[in-house]
């Protein structure tokens, strides 16, 4: 019992630290990706290639004046950002990152807790997240904030329907509500994943679209359309209260990407089985990155690169070597695949933000009710029929 508590505490600290760092750097990655899509360098001044920009942003946000405007509904105004960030961080507690592993004689899962209603827990927590945004908009006593809050609650209610319906289809196939069992039933390569094996390509696409809307991202970022609503629901928020909404948005992005990977893309399962060399892929990727860095270090464009790039190359080689160690492989390789898949979906988020314009509000509502929802229902019906026929 004591070992369980200690291990759980360690896991909580590790997951929290990693999640917080990812949240900060996701924003840096996003700014870089969009900058390169728009052919500009992006953050460049703070640290090499702007790598210390998130740190500078955090210091800036903490030291800013924390302003509470007059005539706001104070209890709700203060509670709203707290609610948003709590609900966003809570759902990460049931997301599994890898298989069950042995650490110093103790067996533990790479997950904070495995609920047998894990999928429902994520749905419940994310549906509670609407309150943070809706109440922030209402309690600010500002017409732009109110409009933003109204838009976002209408949008999140509407898109929750196709989202839940598409989640139901892979659940029918895997016949479980536990996220860990869900992945276990998909192991064995890409042709066992729900997106291929279950023929869930339609529901995967609907899930992605609805997930973009649930997290208020481009092209569905109507709640914070700056040319219409100043900044939407968080117009009146400053300092760390604004930062909590910002963090909640990114945490929700991570959760939704993890859910897509777990439900449709086989979780931490490699695209093809390990006996055909899939466990060598991470080492090969990092070794290749090391070679590229060394090559550019030899033919340095700037004098500084001749020193920094070989260092990066050696670091990449060390990481590649770590991936080849048999004792590390059992948990590092699944973790790599999980992060690679989640990262790809997060990259898709940024890619779309850099390339697509925003919807009009009536298009947004018409799209979900007249297209996404019927297709999701149809998909669920067909899946149900097929599952009933096969079993």
């Amino acid at each position: 019992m004591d070992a369980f508590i200690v291990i759980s505490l360690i896991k909580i600290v590790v997951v929290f630290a990693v999640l917080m760092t990812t949240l900060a750097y996701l924003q840096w990655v996003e700014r870089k990706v969009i900058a390169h899509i728009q052919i500009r360098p992006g953050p460049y001044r703070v640290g090499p290639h702007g790598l210390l920009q998130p740190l500078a942003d955090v210091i800036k946000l903490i030291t800013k004046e924390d302003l509470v405007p007059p005539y706001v509904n104070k209890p709700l105004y203060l509670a709203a950002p707290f609610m948003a960030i709590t609900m966003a961080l809570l759902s990460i507690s049931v997301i599994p990152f890898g298989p069950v592993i042995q650490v110093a004689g103790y067996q533990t899962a790479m997950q904070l807790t495995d609920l047998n209603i894990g999928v429902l827990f994520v749905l419940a927590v994310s549906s509670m997240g609407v309150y943070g945004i809706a109440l922030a908009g209402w309690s600010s006593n500002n017409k732009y904030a109110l409009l933003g809050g109204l838009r976002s609650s209408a949008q999140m209610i509407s898109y929750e329907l196709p989202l839940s319906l598409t989640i139901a289809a892979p659940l029918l196939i895997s016949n479980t509500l536990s996220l860990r069992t869900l992945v276990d039933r998909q192991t064995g390569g890409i042709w066992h994943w729900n997106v291929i094996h279950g023929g869930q390509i339609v529901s995967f696409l609907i899930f992605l679209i609805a997930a973009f809307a649930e997290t208020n991202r481009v092209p569905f970022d109507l709640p914070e359309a700056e040319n219409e609503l100043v900044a939407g629901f968080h117009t009146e928020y400053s300092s760390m209260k604004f930062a909590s909404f910002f963090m909640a948005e990114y945490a929700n992005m991570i959760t939704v990407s993890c859910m897509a990977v777990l439900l449709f893309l086989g979780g931490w399962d490699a695209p093809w089985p390990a006996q055909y060399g899939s466990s060598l892929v991470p080492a090969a990727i990092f070794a290749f990155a090391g070679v590229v860095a060394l090559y550019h270090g030899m033919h340095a464009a700037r004098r500084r690169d001749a020193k920094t790039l070989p260092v990066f190359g050696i670091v990449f080689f060390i990481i590649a070597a770590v991936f080849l160690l048999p004792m590390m492989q059992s948990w590092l390789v699944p973790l790599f695949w999980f992060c690679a898949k989640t990262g790809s979906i997060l990259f898709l988020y940024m890619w779309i933000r850099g390339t697509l314009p925003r919807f009009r509000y009536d298009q947004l509502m018409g799209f979900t009710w007249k297209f996404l929802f019927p297709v999701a229902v149809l998909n669920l019906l067909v899946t149900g029929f097929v599952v009933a026929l096969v079993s």
Partner: protein
Amino acid sequence: MDVILFLIFAIIAVVCAINVVVQTHPISSAISLVGVMGSLAILYLTLGAEFLAAAQVIVYAGAVMVLFVFVIMLLNAGAETKKGQSSMALFLGGPLLVALLILLVWFVQSRYSETVHFGGFRGGSAQDVGRALFTTYLLPFEVTSILILIAILGAIVLARKEMD
């Protein structure tokens, strides 16, 4: 442990329920109702009815109450004012409330005397609930879904009339 959890969330539920009535602003009342539903869900969870708990949060707290809040925000309903409070309500209502509570406690004590333990209820998983819905309670389940369908159609018809 389960007694402590029960006491905490039962007290939160009751306080929130009283708050629903006491608050003058509709939004505050609605948020208190969310609190009631959330603590009810946790009480279900301590009993071992995990599916019911999740459904309670998803459907009531996450969908129905969001719509409530949405409508209140959309109509921009202001705070209610307290007026016309009669002293009769206090004189008659107070003793009646106490009598009702005593009656309720006596009724529950005499009817359901055995105590409930943490996780004492088996059959609260999603699989069990699904099986019960589609075998034992198939007819009520289907009738309810038809009722909801009628409600949806009614809503559409009413909304149409408004538009013309």
